[in-house]
């Protein structure tokens, strides 16, 4: 199994969720995040002052899936989250050793 983590622009959440549902994913965790990538933030004007805003608001999505699905799922998330402009975010995956469904005690793929 693999844990896929995606950091995306907040307003792309609905598009990515729809893509995940179309793919047949049953579970998803979303949390608010902030950070920066290669372009390192942007400049904002407020109350007559210019600020360098280096931590930009993002959403972090986490999905656990079977190894076989991982590459396709990453592609599905990336294409749903893409606007083509800077700050679109990142998607990555790491191996997962164990998953347990708390209610039933099922383990592994059966718990997804």
């Amino acid at each position, binding site marked *: 199994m693999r844990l896929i983590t995606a950091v995306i622009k907040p307003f792309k959440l609905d598009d990515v969720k729809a893509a995940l549902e179309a793919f047949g994913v049953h579970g998803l965790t979303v949390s608010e995040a902030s950070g920066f990538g290669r372009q390192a933030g942007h400049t*904002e*004007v*407020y*109350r*007559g*002052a*210019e*600020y*360098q*805003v280096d931590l930009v608001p993002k959403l972090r999505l986490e999905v656990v899936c079977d190894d076989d699905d991982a590459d396709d799922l990453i592609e599905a998330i990336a294409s749903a989250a893409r606007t083509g402009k800077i700050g679109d975010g990142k998607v990555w995956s790491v191996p997962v050793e164990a998953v347990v469904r708390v209610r039933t005690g099922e383990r592994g793929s059966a718990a997804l």
Partner: protein
Amino acid sequence: MPNSAAINAGDTAWVLVSAALVMLMIPGLALFYGGMVRVKSALNMLMMSVTCLAVVTVVWVLYGYSLAFGPDAGGVIGTLRDAGFSGIGTHAVTGSIPTLAFAAFQLMFAAITAALLSGSIADRAKFGSWIVFVIAWVTVVYFPVAHWVFDPSGWISAHLHVLDLAGGTVVEINSGASGLALALVLGRRLGFKRDPMRPHSIPLVVMGAGLLWFGWFGFNAGSALASGGLASVAFINTQVAGAAGVLGWLGVELRRDKHATTLGAVSGAVAGLVGITPACGSVNPLGALVIGLLAGVAAAYAVGLKFRLGYDDSLDVAGVHGVGGLVGTLLIGVLATAAVTGGARGLFYGGGFDQLGRQALAAVVVGAYAFAMSWLLAKGIDRWLGFRVSRDDELAGLDLIIHGETAYDIAGHTAGVGHRIGQSVSSSQAVPEQDAASAKIRP
């Protein structure tokens, strides 16, 4: 300054109500300022205002009233004869109202003017040092200046014949100049010009500004010290200038920043209200429109100066109150009309430069005195007690470190990271679960 005139019931009722209205401006100011700071020091911001209400009241009863409005000594200060309100009973009269009503009304002015200063040193002042500063500041700066301008025998009132109904000099220029001195002594917040330091709750700011605007009717129209034509023109002028201030500030923002912000709208209201404070009893409503608009525009540009010049007047006490108060105090010399003042006329109404010169002199003297004395007091307290918290405490936020509480506990995780019995607060870290649990049930 009691005299033998009879007490007027209508005047007394209006001044008592006005005193209560001005009192409401202090929690209003606390919310206005508290919403503007970052969440970690929001309560400290509220506390700096709220404690002014308590501390200045005590000082006022003991000797403050007497220094400001007791028997005159050379036009400079009152003597201590009326300390503790000794000898001032229910029959003592000031103008057409009981002296105690006048004293209650003026007490609120002293308290809110001291509270105004706190905005310039947001997020970084030691709480005990702030209390000591407030006591010293009202004694050395506020009471004398109030005597000069508000007492009929004070030198600015009696000899300079300056027009300042509700305190463009005493309250606004005074707090602006003093706030600037405080900001310079304490230095910039950590991360100034690097971190955005945006307001943590603009709805709180709007609520605070609303209370301020409401209370300002008492502040300005109550300063007539009578219920009649002067109070009425001050009342309508207050409303007009607040409204014009909103539009003036938003106009600058649209041109400069491309956004009309909520913070800008309420800041503009306050700037307009500040501008009309001295002038509310000297100009007609069209004059109030001009003053409010110009105060809003001037303050909107002035708040950007601190970033260019590098001083951290955090919540723009100098930028809004100093600049707005200066605009209003000077424009009396231009827009004062005999139809309202009953005599004095400004430049625009054929009065020449006479009144304008008097207004400018008073503004400069009060501003210079307030700045110099506040700078000396703040420096002295900084040497004696230290005025600024440590770097770690400033980064952690003053609410937990100084007050042992947080403004919002939405996740319910605050217990256990606050004040631990028998240990210094600043050294407390996240505590083991058992400690947190026992802290909750300890009576």
